[in-house]
């Protein structure tokens, strides 16, 4: 009786949040079952290259989260492995976003520039990033700068090409309205062209984030002394396979979190899209 009453009294927003959390609970059990299956499978198999999940997590805790309280419980290993990797991928993505959006806007606004540049851009984006590692090492050395540049170079294409498409697809009436109301160039760019192309730009950012993470690991497998990619190769070569597995699980978690961050940014930037925001009635 009281349960029924509180259900009808719930606001739409609360009902929706309740619906979302229920969806999470009803769907997340698949992940839990998969983890249990892994644990059981690994324990019964008992082979050293396929350790149980709990052992992997213990090792991960040892490697990265067993530091003193003064350093927020993280170890020096966490700084050299995880933080340096995160720094590279975030800087690389920010660079890609700045360059991709500015160049993409310019190309999109210039009439026919896209038509001339498209084959070149498509060619450059098609080169597998692995093939670029040797030339990037020659050009930029073997420091963090080279890795950040490689991440930026790989992730810039989806953002750039989507920005071009978004800018070119801006509703002509938006431009006509701006002209009639004498809106200046800076406002037209920042307050009309960019918001209008934001849905496509953010879709590009999502693809770029996944690419950036791949290239991050890849670049750290070559001539590196820090980063998760480096740690992964190091542990594999030292036959510390459980530590290697810990790196893989950590990469999965980081990929999941980066994607979640992009989703949050998307929700915030595109809150004006119909359906993105609950009606205030």
């Amino acid at each position: 009786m009281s349960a029924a009453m509180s259900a009808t009294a719930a606001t739409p927003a609360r009902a929706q949040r309740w619906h979302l959390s229920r969806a999470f609970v009803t769907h997340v059990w698949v992940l839990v079952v998969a983890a249990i299956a892994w644990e059981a499978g690994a324990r019964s198999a008992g082979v050293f290259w396929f350790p149980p999940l709990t052992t992997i997590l213990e090792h991960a805790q040892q490697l990265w989260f067993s530091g003193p309280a003064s350093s927020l419980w993280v170890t020096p290993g966490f700084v050299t492995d995880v933080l340096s990797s995160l720094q590279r991928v975030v800087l690389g993505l920010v660079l890609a976003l700045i360059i991709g959006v500015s160049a993409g806007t310019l190309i999109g606004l210039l009439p026919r520039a896209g038509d001339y540049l498209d084959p070149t851009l498509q060619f450059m984006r098609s080169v597998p990033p692995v093939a670029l590692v040797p030339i990037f090492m020659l050009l930029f050395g073997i420091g963090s700068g080279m890795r950040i540049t490689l991440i930026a170079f790989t992730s810039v294409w989806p953002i750039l090409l989507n920005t071009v498409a978004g800018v070119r697809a801006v509703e002509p009436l938006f431009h006509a309205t701006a002209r009639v109301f004498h809106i200046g160039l800076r406002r037209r760019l920042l307050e009309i062209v960019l918001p209008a192309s934001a849905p496509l730009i953010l879709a590009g950012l999502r693809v770029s984030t996944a690419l950036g993470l791949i290239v991050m690991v890849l670049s750290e497998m070559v001539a590196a002394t820090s980063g998760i990619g480096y740690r992964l190769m190091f542990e594999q070569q030292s036959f510390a396979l459980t530590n290697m597995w810990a790196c893989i699980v950590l990469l999965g978690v980081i990929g999941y979190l980066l994607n979640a961050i992009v989703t949050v940014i998307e929700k915030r930037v595109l809150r004006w899209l119909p359906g993105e925001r609950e009606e205030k009635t």
Partner: protein
Amino acid sequence: MSAQESSVEPLRALLRVENLSHAYGRGPQAPLILDRIGFEVRRRQIVSLVGPSGCGKTTLLYSISGLLQPTDGQVLLEDTPVRGIPPGLAMVFQDYSRSLYPWMSIERNVDFPLAAAGLARGERRTRIDECLEAVGLRGHEAKYPWQLSGGMQQRAAIARAIACRPDLLLMDEPFASVDAQTREDLEDLVLSVRKRFDMTILFITHDIDESVYLSDRVIVLSKSPTCVQDQVEVRFPHERDQIGTRSHPEFGVLRAHIASLIRGAGAAVRQTERQAVTAGIS
């Protein structure tokens, strides 16, 4: 003396369109859309352009607003030839859903041209409140356009236009995509806005009743290539109402006159089409 001045003053045209022609493309083969159009709009008048569908009404309005460079002729705003988009002009487009910016709240949409014009914050605030109040949208400031009905979105577009305090307001079939009841409300809104802000309005429509109800003068356009068929003075007082004005005998006479002109123009098109079809069969 002063009486003489005041009787002369309203005769001065705010907008003068002279011999305006437009062809899409170049050379003698280019299809002519507008053929030597000429008319005047005086201050505080509402003048309607009405014509058969596809007669180049929007091309005409775009030429007047400077969005389109006409092939020949000129547009004078207060005796100054229009080159590019003149200041002191605002426009309400037919398609509000593609003219209001969907990522801006209603308030921000109205504020945007004012901010771009560099007005002080206090002045902007006053104008936003005043104009949203005039169109009956107070309380909806924070909403996004999609959260409002079509009629309310068009009200917001009208508020945005009048907040700029334009000398001339151009309206391009603004009520073509709203339902009949909303349409009548919006027509009365146009009349009240004209009265309150001393607006001069050039109104494009394909609805004959709407043109007679709103206007001081109706300019009847022909089929393409478009020229002015007739200019019909509407001698009702500025105060009008949906039932009284529309049932006035004079209203019927005017609408019948305009309708026969437009149907004549349309019938000519249909006749040539029919002839072409018959020729194709035989």
